[in-house]
């Protein structure tokens, strides 16, 4: 593949995939350490009803209502889970299972009932995303990177996911100490006067933001895989939080680039014409990385 084709067809999906992986992995570190890994799972399921609801209200596929709808759905899910857990005295895993399956089912039903024939909205798209289609048609080569006219034609998903990644990275840098203290020793954090509950809620909200922005671009499969696999693998490599975050970033980027490359070019090396799902391949590579870390990681026990 020459430079021109690369910039047009591969650069933007690769960037979007990497940024989605990055933002989810950053938030995922804290979910894994706080034993809330499955909050990521639940959030990525309830994004679907949120998006369907936004579509039913506005009648179009436009970004901001959808982001808003899925954020609302994520918050509703978290509140419902908490209510069932507390008032119904049900253990958190089961409470989560009740809420996210029911909300997902409602989303599917609403989708089947509404007339979505004119727009691109279906369950499979929500699950796998369509990373391969986020191409940059205005690009004519590397020179386009400095050409304002061509830059204006970049897929809008790229801006959104970049924005969210920057916001999450900034929050992480600014609130590093309180985050670390309240994650490892909540009692100590409380005696220091840190707002422990607010920090917990903030982590869930940041995860929801990452999930929604990544979902918009690449589908929910990458979201779950990136929330959990790179941070879990990083956890098996080191005992230090800083190093763990660094490892998870590295793993997420490796999974995104390797997965995207394998999906696009892998079948060709085996003599097949067609590419396979990039989102699926990225998730698979992340799983393989975790398997290697579980077998050989220096801090695996």
């Amino acid at each position: 593949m020459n430079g021109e084709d690369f910039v047009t067809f591969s650069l933007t999906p690769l960037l979007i995939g990497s940024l989605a992986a990055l933002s989810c992995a950053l938030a995922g570190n804290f979910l894994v350490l706080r034993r809330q890994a499955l909050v990521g799972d639940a959030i990525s399921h309830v994004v679907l009803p949120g998006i369907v609801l936004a579509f039913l209200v506005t009648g179009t596929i436009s970004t901001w209502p959808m982001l808003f709808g899925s954020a609302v759905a994520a918050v509703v899910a978290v509140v419902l889970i908490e209510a069932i857990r507390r008032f119904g005295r049900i253990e958190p895993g089961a409470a989560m299972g009740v809420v996210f399956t029911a909300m997902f089912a409602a989303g599917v039903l609403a989708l089947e009932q509404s007339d979505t024939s004119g727009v691109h909205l279906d369950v499979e798209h929500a699950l796998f995303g369509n990373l391969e289609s986020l191409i940059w048609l205005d690009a004519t080569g590397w020179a386009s990177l400095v050409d304002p006219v061509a830059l204006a034609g970049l897929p809008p998903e790229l801006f959104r996911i970049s924005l969210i990644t920057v916001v999450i990275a900034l929050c992480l840098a600014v609130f590093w100490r309180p985050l670390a203290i309240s994650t490892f020793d909540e009692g100590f954090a409380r005696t220091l006067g840190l707002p422990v509950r607010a920090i917990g809620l903030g982590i869930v909200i940041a995860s929801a933001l990452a999930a929604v922005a990544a979902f918009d671009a690449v589908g929910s499969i990458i979201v779950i895989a990136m929330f959990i696999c790179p941070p879990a693998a990083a956890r098996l490599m080191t005992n230090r939080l800083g190093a763990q975050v660094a490892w998870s970033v590295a793993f997420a980027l490796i999974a995104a680039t390797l997965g995207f490359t394998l999906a696009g070019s892998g079948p060709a090396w085996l003599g097949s014409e067609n590419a396979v799902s990039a989102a699926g391949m990225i998730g698979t590579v992340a799983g393989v990385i975790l398997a290697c870390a579980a077998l050989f990681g220096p801090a695996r026990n």
Partner: protein
Amino acid sequence: MLRDALTFQLGYNATLVTVAAVLLGFAAGVTGTFLFLRKRALVSDAIAHATLPGIGIAFIALTLSGHDGRHLPGLLAGSAVTAMSGLFAVQWLSSRTRLSEDAAIGAVLSAHFSLGIVLLTVIQTMSTGRQAGLENFLLGSTAGMLLSDAILIALGGLLVVALVFLFRRPMSLVSFDPGFASTSGVRLDRIDLTMMGLVLGVTVVGLKVVGLILVVALLIIPPVTARFWTNRVELVVILAGAFGGIAAWLGAGLSASAPDLPTGPLIVLVSFCLFAVSMALAPRRGLLSSLVRHRRFQAGVHMRQGLLALAQGQPIYEPLTIRLLKARGLARADGMPTREGAVRAARALRDEKRWEVARATPELELAAARYDGLTQIEDVLTADQIAEIDHRIGPPEAVQ
């Protein structure tokens, strides 16, 4: 239309689907109960998502060996194999590495599902793959179900129920008290494995009807619903099965009664409605009864404190207390006690005084520990003991 569907009058195919779904719902509810009581409900989510690569591999293998790739028993066998590998991966990651079970579940779920998606796109490029309809396993599809498929699902459900009946004792023991179970000679790991094997069976059987994303709902929601109604494990199991069966029957019926109503999501939503009603209305554990209990307790505390204040001639500022006293005719609007209020207040003060003496008496220590500001001392001590206390306090004074 709905009545026809629910009474199996809606034709051969709809009846077939409903019967298979009801058996599946019952089996899932019964099996899920043990999973829920063992606090491992979401392991089923990992198992369910791990079926997808197996379906893909089975389809490819069947097609390459010259068979029809859509052969349901073959696909289900394939799905069972990778579901098992997913289950072992969760067990291994959570027991042999420092990762907690929830991280292991999430990792296994997403990695297997991703691989499954890759295989689905591979199959779409195969010449026979375009019409494979394997995506239907994601959300289930009951359209055009064959008699042999329905029989397979029904038999699978029956087999699971029979096995649960066989292993019900060790499984309940392990669910409630793993420590006690292992000291009394039950092999924990084997029973856990049996339990998970049954869950795997339900998941595989349920793929066709509700799909792999929603099948966990059948395993989780009915047991949680049943738990609101009773504390006895046998009853939870039977109720969960019943709730699962009812949800499947209503869901399949509704789905058959109009177009564009997918069976799987409807079964899940009916199940959720049963859950919501149970959480709201169940006796003892339900929200409504908790609220009533809370109100009653609150009223009791306010009445008691209000009466004590009246007895000691202190002003009452708390609006709820005044309202409660007025409603019972014990106080007037200005906060002064009525005749009956004065009597009750004196009685409350005397009760409080008796408690005070009882708590200061070492022999009555045990009984006095039940003091909570609400219990009447007559409910705890004998008449003789109270007479002894009264002797120390002195005789009651007449209320003016």
